[in-house]
C-alpha cells in the first residue's frame, strides 16, 4: 500500500530510535505544530534501502513533504527547510 490515505499527514519523517539528529528534527516539527507521520527504519545502515530509494542515500533523518514535493536528508538542512517553509518569517 504505497498510496497515502487522506488522513495521513503530508509530512513523513524517516527516523531511527534514539538518533539525536532525528530527535532534533522531531523537536523542530513540534515547535512548528506540524503534523507528521514517523517511520522507524532499519538500524543497520547498509540495509536501509527504504530511505535510499527516496533520497539516494541511506542516512536518517529524512523527510518527505507532500505539500511542497520536497524530499530531503541531513538534519541541518531539514531544520532550515522547516524554519524557512513553516516558520513565522515564511
Amino acid at each position, binding site marked *: *500500500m504505497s498510496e497515502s*490515505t487522506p*488522513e495521513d499527514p503530508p509530512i513523513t519523517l*524517516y527516523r531511527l530510535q534514539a538518533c539525536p539528529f532525528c530527535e532534533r528534527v522531531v523537536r523542530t516539527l513540534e515547535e512548528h505544530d506540524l503534523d507528521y*507521520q*514517523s*517511520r*522507524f*527504519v*532499519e538500524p543497520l545502515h547498509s540495509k536501509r*534501502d*527504504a530511505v535510499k530509494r527516496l533520497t539516494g542515500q541511506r542516512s536518517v533523518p529524512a523527510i518527505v513533504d507532500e505539500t511542497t514535493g520536497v524530499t530531503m536528508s541531513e538534519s541541518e538542512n531539514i531544520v532550515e527547510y522547516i524554519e524557512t517553509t513553516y516558520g513565522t518569517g515564511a
Partner: protein
Amino acid sequence: MDLGFDVVELDEPDYPEEGASAPEFVRPLVNDEYWEDVALSELTADGPVLLVFHSMDGAFPATYIWKELADRAFDEQYDVTIVGLSISTPYEHKTFIADRNLPYRLFSDPQNGVAEMYGVVNDLGGFAGVSESRPAVFLIDGDRTVRYAWAAREWPEFPDYDEIENALDRL
C-alpha cells in the same frame, strides 16, 4: 488433536462475535523495511482485513500459522488485507518477516492491550510478568464489522484455515 492425554484448556474467551464492531486500535505496523503507527480503521478503509493474533515471534505456533497463511495466500484470491499482531517488538517482527520472506505486515503490541480489548489474552505459564494473545482470527469488513471470529480454546490450537476461506467466500 488426539494425543492420548489432556492438553491445556484455556478459559472461555469473550471476544467480538460475528456482527459486532471490531474495536479500533493504533499500533506500530511493521513491514520488511520500517514501521509506523497505523489504525485498524486505516486498513479497513481499503476493504476487508484479516487480523491474526499469534504467539510471540520465535514460538512454533507463530511459525506454523504464518507458514500456512503464506502458502494459502488468501489475499491473491480475495479482496483482503492480511495483518498479524503479537507482543513482539518491531525489531523482532522485522527479523521474523525477513527470515521467512513473509509478504504480510505485523502489528507490534508488547503491552498486550489489543488482545485485552479483543478478549483473547493468554497468560503464559513460566513467563513471569508476560502475557500475550491466544491464537485468534478476526475477519473484519470495510465497516469494521466482524464477519468471522475464532479464538483458541486449547493451548496450542490452530485456526481452521478452511473456515477462514469459507468466510472470505461469504464476504
